[in-house]
């Protein structure tokens, strides 16, 4: 990336040799032109070295056999598309990992955006005291670290002595043997959804609420005079005006929910002992870090990255279209 900055700097400031009539002005304009690149040099170098170079290296790894033997010998062998063939063939990816990843993300994004929007609208209609209470609560839920939040939900649903088991048993709704919610894929992901939506809706609610306060009240009043009800006003005024904000929170939620790792890995069985519940991220991590099949893990990681790239591309188009209008 340093190379790119350097060439770009040269390209934007082509100092022709013969043009030396006004040297002072030329040097000033040269520094002025270089200034953004001077400012960007350090941040871009960090991004290039620790985000861009690794993503190139992981792609390179995905075409190699790279296990313990290769680490020791230092001579990984090229295997072409073998790792991808191994990841894509068989039913495990298509029946288990991909549905886990995609369905989880879809439900989590819809849940987060819907709940976040409802809470934002609720915040707008509340008095100052109730509003402050809800915002404070949302901040606390947002602040609850993913690791601790996950452990609290695991404790609530603990199959031996958790709150849900004991409550259901006291109510006579669950037999004395109890039930392990973490072994079944559907209930496992149900708990993960609760955890993730609980953790990520406050960001959406607070951001949308901040956006709502920027909508001029006159718009709503005019619409009310024209006979529009609350539902119509939401879809005709709030949504169009806040479309950029909705776009941003949906982009970020989708990206975050597709690559959810901690919340799955830390649940019982989520770190590999229950193959039914792995998603793309955890599967890749298992293969690479825990089983030392770095090549195969890298191939799965590249597949996850491609999915995310596709989503990002769609949203970038939406965002930049909005920018042109504004």
């Amino acid at each position, binding site marked *: 990336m340093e190379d790119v900055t350097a060439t770009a700097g040269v390209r934007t400031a082509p100092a022709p040799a013969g043009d030396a009539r006004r040297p002072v002005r030329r040097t000033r304009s040269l520094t002025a032109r270089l200034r953004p690149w001077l400012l960007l040099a350090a941040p871009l170098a960090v991004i290039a070295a620790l985000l861009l170079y690794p993503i190139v290296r992981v792609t390179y790894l995905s075409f190699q056999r790279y296990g313990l033997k290769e680490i020791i010998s230092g001579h990984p062998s090229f295997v072409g598309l073998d790792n991808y063939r191994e990841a894509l063939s068989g039913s495990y990816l298509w029946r288990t990992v991909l549905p886990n990843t995609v369905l989880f993300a879809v439900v989590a994004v819809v849940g987060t955006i819907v709940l976040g929007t409802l809470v934002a609208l609720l915040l707008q209609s509340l008095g100052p005291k109730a509003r402050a209470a809800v915002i404070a609560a949302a901040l606390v839920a947002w602040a609850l670290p993913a*690791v601790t939040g996950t452990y609290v939900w695991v404790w609530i649903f603990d199959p031996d002595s958790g709150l849900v088991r004991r409550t259901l048993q006291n109510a006579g709704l669950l037999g004395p043997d109890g039930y392990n919610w973490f072994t079944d894929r559907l209930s496992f992901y149900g708990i993960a959804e609760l955890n993730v939506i609980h953790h990520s809706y406050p*960001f959406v609610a607070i951001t949308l609420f901040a956006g709502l306060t920027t909508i001029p009240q006159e718009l709503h009043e005019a619409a009310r005079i024209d006979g529009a009800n609350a539902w119509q006003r939401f879809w005709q005024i709030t949504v169009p005006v806040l479309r950029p904000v909705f776009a941003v929170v949906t982009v970020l939620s989708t990206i975050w929910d597709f690559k959810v790792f901690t919340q799955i890995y830390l649940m019982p069985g989520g770190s590999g002992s229950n193959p039914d519940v792995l998603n793309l991220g955890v599967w890749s991590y298992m293969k690479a870090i825990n089983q030392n099949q770095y090549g195969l893990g890298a191939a799965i990681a590249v597949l996850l990255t491609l999915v995310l790239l596709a989503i*990002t591309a769609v949203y*970038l188009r939406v965002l930049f279209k909005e920018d042109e209008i504004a």
Partner: protein
Amino acid sequence: MSARTSVWAKAGKYAATAAVLLFTLFPVYFMLPTAFNGRASSGTDSLFPTHLTLSHFSRALSSGESGGFGRYMVNSAIVTVIVVVATCVLALLGAVAMTRFRFRLRTTVLVLILVVQMLPAEALVIPLFLQMKDLRMLNSLLGLAIVYIAFALPFAIWNLRGFVAAVPVELEEAAYLDGCSWWRMFRSVLLPLVVPGLIATSAFSFVLAWEEFTFALTFLNDPGRMTVGVGLAEFLGRNTNDWGGLMAASTLVTIPVVVVFVLAQRRLTVGLVAGAVK
């Protein structure tokens, strides 16, 4: 008719508020009584604690040959300070460049900053693990901090952009008219006005560095070097079903984050909204 609807609307609003508060606060609430309860043997016992005790906290803080949670919290604090300071400095440079200058490739850089935010940690952890292993920087808090800076930076630049853009250019021009150099203007005009943005950036990078799990799990295997996220997992691994101790440790991990969020409250989303609506 309309009076009756408004009564129902009011009741609905209260019910909705109560439901939101219950769902939002319950997990946080449930953590506390378990942490302080002398009989935290089952979930229903923990719901309303009767025998208050601090023994879970002392167990969490002292257990293990590595020094327990006190050690993990110090490690996390070291990493966090490095990450917050470095991210603020680098993000401010980047945000000023992106908002105050029109240059070739500006859109390209902007798209790059947006796109790298979507790169999954799971994909980067594999090459970075191999790299850190080659550099013998596994179990190094500095190595971990450097990775976190890179992860915090794209979002920090993007978020800070909105705050910098909100500072009127006229103020800068006035400073130039008064004979300020660019650097002097940056220090005396721009910097003080983007402090709210820096507070938001600090809060976000604080949270990322304090509680990050994936890289800490991969890079750190020496218990003396663990940070709080992976420390919690290590604690549960050693003390299966010690929910009291785990929730006490979780409480310790959560408190600093809640404090930071409450302090930074008003600044957290301003940059995003300003950047998006503008």
